[in-house]
């Protein structure tokens, strides 16, 4: 196995995530897309780790941290979604354009 096969897969996932983030209207779905991106990053890290085999397995540690942070992000994100929903009865980002220029 070469490392690039993982990297390219990760790149693809990341791109998909970006696409989702740009296209999705529903905030929850946007969060999902973000998860895809972070996941891509994880793939990168782990792949690199097993390519380099660092003494302290830094890559994997990094991946674990990313996963944790991602979880926290989700929590925060959903909380915000709920708050907005409570005020606006909608989880649609397009409705959020009160403030401009």
């Amino acid at each position, binding site marked *: 196995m070469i*490392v690039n096969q993982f*990297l390219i897969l990760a790149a693809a996932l*990341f791109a998909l*995530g*970006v696409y989702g*983030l740009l296209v999705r209207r529903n*905030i929850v779905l*946007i969060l999902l897309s*973000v998860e895809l*991106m*972070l996941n*891509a*990053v994880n793939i*990168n*890290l782990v*792949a*690199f780790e097993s*390519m*380099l085999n*660092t003494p302290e397995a*830094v*890559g994997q*540690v*990094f991946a674990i*941290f*990313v996963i944790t*942070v991602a979880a*926290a*992000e989700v929590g*925060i*994100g959903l*909380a*915000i979604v709920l*708050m*907005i929903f*409570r*005020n*606006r009865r909608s989880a649609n*980002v397009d409705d*959020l*354009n*009160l*403030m*401009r*220029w």
Partner: protein
Amino acid sequence: MPFEIDYLALAPELIIVGTLILVLVLDLILPRPQKYWTATVAVAGTALALLPLGLLALNDETISMFDGSYVVDDFALVLKGLFLVAAYLVFLMSHHYIESERYYQGEYYFLLLASVLGSLVMASSRDLIVLFIGLELVTGPLFLLAGWRKGDVKSNEASMKYFILGVLSTAILLYGMSLVFGLTGEVSFAGIAAATAGMSDEPALVMAILFMMVGFGFKIAAVPFHFWAPDTYEGAPTPISAYLSVNSKAAGFVAMLIVMYQALPGASDVWAPILWLLAALSMTIGNLSALRQTNIVRLLAYSSVAQAGFMLVPFAAAAVAGADLQQAFGATLIYLVIYAVMNLGAFAVVIAGARKTASGELSRWAGLARVDPILGVLTAVFFFSLAGIPPLAGWFAKFEMFRSVIIADPGTISLAVIAAVNTVIALYYYAKVVKSVWLDDPVGEFPGDAAAAPAGSLRLALGVAVALTVAIGVYPSMAAFVRDAAQVLATGG
């Protein structure tokens, strides 16, 4: 393998941790009317955390822990000082604001303290992972705090925009970091620096640097990663906007400084041009956008974008052969410190003014000085300082900034000229604020309790800010020690 831990070195972080736990506890036991104690505790804690800094500053040997992934040197101390003082001022501003609006107080201070903790950690980080976690801790709570005015849809929107763009930037940043790791097999800056020595022509590295820069660029709201700033500043509670525009921006800069000068000094010929571009864009677009703002907070938002541009200028000099890296580094740092002081002052003025005018619209601020000359004077001081007019602190920041790029090199000179032109543009809208406060005739009565003086804490904040602004302006040597701190780090470069 066990690590020996220097607790004095960690004291500031530990004190903050203690404070935020104490705040939580107090929040649970205190009945609502007494909850303002949490604020007091937070302020006290922050002040207390400044003490060990002093002690550490006295002995200037560098303390390095955990395989050098966590370092306490002068540079770190200066920044921690900056973060703590800024936080201290923000707390002072928040106190009355939060209490009077019946927001959740305990949680508010808890989250803010957490964010402060993050910034402290980041200042000492010499390692991608620590840096990343630190940044997350700085930002995470802010996503929530931006939406603290739960009832107000604008506030919701603010936090939502901030959050979505925040996570996007985090993802990109992480991707960049992963590439760096992959290329070097290291996460410690020292290691990376060693490994990337001759690698500057490696496209993947360039890409990695770019992606990381996107992450930092978001934090410091540099064009084109600035879109969130105006909306968020406007929607968020004003003290949070202040915090965003100072601490979180500073955090971003610190990250950038460390990574660029510590981890990637070898690749300066890669990142210097990029930052040249970002600087030029941020200055120009930020200023031009600010020209048309009618809402004073949005105006400050764009101004902070432009100011970020000015702070980026010195980076561009780093690539030039024979450039004085310490000088460039110190310039950014000094600018950061001075900017923090005067920008916080400006926001404090906004809070105080908003109480009188009950509006953030500049038009409603017209003639404010008639009813409150002191506030008028303060407005003049802070905004002219931001404009960089002597003898207010701002001039020295600009001065240092120019000083770092006046090198015999077309690239930097051209940037200097761009900066000079922008200084004048910026002048226009800063003067516009002062103008409407002093020169315009009031439109009707001031709805807010025009008589009400700013709350004691806010007055204290204003006092500190104005004192520092004038003092540094008249005797800039005060701020010069920052340069010595800068040397520690920049010698790596």
